[in-house]
């Protein structure tokens, strides 16, 4: 750490021109893909091409302008990369919708485009309102309370709705919101603020066991509480994904804050223990494990609840795509249930192939690593933790859902960030990106020049 600080960091350039170019490229790739779908499926460029292009391009130009004005030093890569993933998601949803196949009635690229617009508005509002991310530190406990409330809100009678066996939705009339998506950001803010305040205490060594310094028993409180909340989400809402997402992110942030490997080990032990217990008690957790171990088994394939049919259809889709994919509009990705939301990654794999998925994963990895780079460059512990936590949250979410649909790990329902159809997640993730952009702006801004000698004062202009 000290070594890092000693090296003089060259002042970063704003790179606004490069960002605009890359943004145009991201919109261009999306347009190209959109035309591709229309040509393959109907033999002509889609009628809505212009509206669509102007829509997405306009939103992104607006986002760019707000960013250039209110966060001029921000990382130039994050926005174009997110735009690209968002755009590809829109194209896949459009393609699924166009198939008019059974079970795809829920797919609506128009809705998703509108939601993207709202997401960009929230992105802009966040950047405009939140001029200094450190202001969030003062809201630590408010954020914690809001996060917790959002998390448990689906359990409130009359407000919560059960969809597909999970109670993770709240409804106002026809509109439904998945509050856990917003809760996760509030909770990362809370974790960051809380851990900055308590990290010295939490880092205190207790007893030494073998080569690990255990924390003191009395400091286990926060971990146990988070663990209990995560288990609560799992048990009461049957939402494996959010539970795992929340707990994993907390452990990663705890590790960043305290630099204690023992916390990671304790976290893993608690998680494994909790998962094992849940597996013993709850059929649906048990079912996910069975399916993970042998998804092809006919008995699991035919099982109505907690069966492997959807997973297998996803794998069939990816297998059909092979190395180069069938080409947009030329495969049968709509055969996968929820191919436009939870399983959009499999659908993409069928039509864009291994090549497309590798590129997509690379784009996600780049977003995450840019976020973590921001964390490294940040000047205060809260910003470091916030940027690190948000980046890890994104990586962890991609890992859980993509690992799930490719059967690397047991499948737990989560949205694929920026791609899956669904307003709540898209809005939450655009806020997350706004926070990353805000922190990167702070981190990359040249520090105020110390006035050494009034007589030699010079005015630098960049």
């Amino acid at each position, binding site marked *: 750490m000290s070594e890092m600080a000693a090296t003089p960091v060259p002042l970063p350039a704003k790179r606004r021109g490069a960002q605009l170019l890359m943004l145009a490229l991201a919109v261009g790739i999306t347009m190209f893909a959109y035309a591709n779908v229309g040509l393959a499926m109907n033999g002509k460029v889609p009628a809505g091409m212009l509206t669509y292009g102007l829509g997405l391009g306009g939103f992104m130009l607006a986002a760019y302008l707000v960013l250039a004005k209110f966060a001029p030093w921000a990382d130039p890569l994050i926005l174009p990369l997110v735009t690209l993933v968002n755009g590809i998601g829109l194209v896949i949803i459009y393609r699924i919708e166009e198939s008019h196949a059974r079970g795809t009635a829920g797919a609506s690229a128009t809705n998703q485009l509108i939601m993207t617009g709202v997401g960009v508005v929230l992105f802009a509002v966040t950047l405009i309102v939140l001029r200094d991310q450190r202001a969030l530190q003062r809201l630590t406990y408010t954020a914690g309370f809001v996060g917790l409330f959002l998390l448990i809100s689906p359990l409130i009678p009359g407000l919560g709705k059960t969809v597909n066996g999970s109670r993770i939705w709240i409804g106002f009339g026809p509109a439904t919101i998945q509050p856990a998506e917003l809760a996760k950001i509030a909770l990362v803010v809370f974790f960051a603020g809380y851990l900055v305040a308590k990290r010295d205490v939490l880092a205190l060594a207790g007893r030494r066991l073998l080569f690990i310094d255990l924390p003191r028993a009395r400091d286990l409180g926060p971990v146990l509480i988070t663990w209990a909340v995560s288990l609560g989400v799992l048990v009461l809402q049957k939402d494996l994904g959010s539970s795992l997402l929340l707990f994993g992110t907390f452990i990663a942030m705890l590790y960043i804050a305290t630099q204690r490997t023992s916390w990671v080990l304790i976290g893993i032990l608690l998680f494994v223990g909790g998962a094992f217990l849940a597996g013993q008690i709850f059929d649906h957790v048990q079912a996910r494990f069975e399916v993970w171990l042998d998804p092809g088994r006919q008995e699991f394939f035919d099982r109505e609840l907690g069966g492997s049919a959807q997973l297998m259809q996803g*794998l*069939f889709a990816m297998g059909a795509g092979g190395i180069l994919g069938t080409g947009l509009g030329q495969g049968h990705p709509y055969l996968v249930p929820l191919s436009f939301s939870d399983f959009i990654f499999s659908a993409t794999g069928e039509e864009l192939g*291994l090549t497309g998925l590798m590129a997509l*994963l690379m784009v996600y990895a780049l977003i*995450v690593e840019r976020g973590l780079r921001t964390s490294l460059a940040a000047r205060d512990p809260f910003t470091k933790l916030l940027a690190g936590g948000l980046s890890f949250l994104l990586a962890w979410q991609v890992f859980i859902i993509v*690992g799930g649909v490719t*059967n690397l790990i047991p499948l737990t329902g989560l949205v694929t960030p920026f791609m899956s159809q669904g307003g709540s997640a898209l809005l939450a993730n655009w806020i997350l990106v706004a926070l990353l952009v805000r922190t990167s702006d702070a981190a990359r801004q040249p520090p105020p020049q110390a006035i050494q000698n009034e007589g030699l004062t010079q005015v630098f202009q960049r």
Partner: protein
Amino acid sequence: MNSTVKRIAVACLAMFALLMVNVNYVQAVKADKYSEDQRNLRNFYERYAVQRGRITAGGKEILAQSRETDSSEFRFVRQYTDGKLYAHITGFFSPESAAGIEAAENKLLDGSSSDLLLRRSIDLFTGEPTKGANVDLTINPRAQKAAYDALRASGKRGALVALNPKTGAILAMVSLPSYDPAELSGTDKSKVFARYDVLAKDKSQPLLNRAIGQTYPPGSTFKVVTAAAYLEDDDSRGPNTTVEAPQRLPLPGTTISLPNYGGAACGAGQVPLVFALEKSCNTPFGSIGMQLGYAKMKEQTEKFGMGEQIGVPMSVTQSDFGPEEDKAALAMASIGQRSNRMTPLQMAMIAAGIANNGTVMKPYLVNKITDSKGDSIEDADPQELSEAVSPETAGKLREMMVSVVNNGTANLAQIPGVQVAGKTGTAETSDNRPPHAWFISFAPADDPQIALAVIVESGAANVGAEATGGHTAAPIAKQVMEAVLKN
């Protein structure tokens, strides 16, 4: 905190690396296993992803074609213009199987044949979707229609095959009862399979192509073969050679004797060969068979193509003269009874062989195969199958068969202005059903354009005398011959 952030960065990279390795595993290593999985519907949809070629008759009449749909699952569905009429020729194209030409020429129709490699390569460059090759059949639509209508008018089950005796081209092939191939070519699996089960269990066996897939005792039509063997055995024999024609032929080693049809007398006990054929007497031919012996009879049958593995391209059930037994059995087999079993196609080939101066041509259905752009892939190449009898013998047989139509049992097959050669048959069946009515013929006798065989199952009407096959089957044959000749 930077050191831990860096470690988290490495951990994140490791997670993405794991995902990438796993995606490679799924899409490159396991892909084949997934695509072979029975539960993967893509294989099913793949059947409908390519525009299958057309099946046509006579170069223009479309029997089957693929129509583009709006559905993304089933891009092209199969249509049959006159389904029932051509069902046993075109076959069907069901979700999991196919029959007839649809099955036999599947690789060309769906464009996957290596013969279409060049076309596919060109399509790849020009960006055109691959289409299957078009298959044109030798079927004469008018003859087919005449055969189908005439046979159906009899109200019985049966089959008819008509050949061009000079080339072996199949001009008509009908089997009744028929089915609608459209019902078996739908994309709704459960509906198709349910319909298939009904058809498969139907006692009248509508799915069976009787023309090539069923053997029957040929009855008196087989006397033509016995006569051929008799004439071949000694060049000096001819239509007027006198043969023994007792009222009953004692069968050696048994207590029974072979009567003529209805127990009637055949002339004065000694008749010319041509008279025996005209009146379709049993005793002379039973006696000839015993006189020639099993080996010579079987050899003559084989010379007409029996025992040969034939694909038209659909494979043809083998006909069989029957095993070597005692003299009594040989006498019965020589008049087309006992274990003697022939397909209608085999009987048509016998007529065609005699018509074509003794040379049997290999029967075939496919006239021409062209790729989607009309370039020829394959043209029919008529081939000799065997030399059944010498041209002299063929001439004598022809003379006698003409006489059968003009003076004998087959007068209902006469066509004004055209010399028709034919032979009737009434085949007893082992069970207690009425006998089958047969007729084989060719015309015009001096320059044959068509040779055919028709069988009407249990179709022999009770009209007395020997005229049963002639009564039911010969008029059907006449209508088909007229359809071909009166162009």
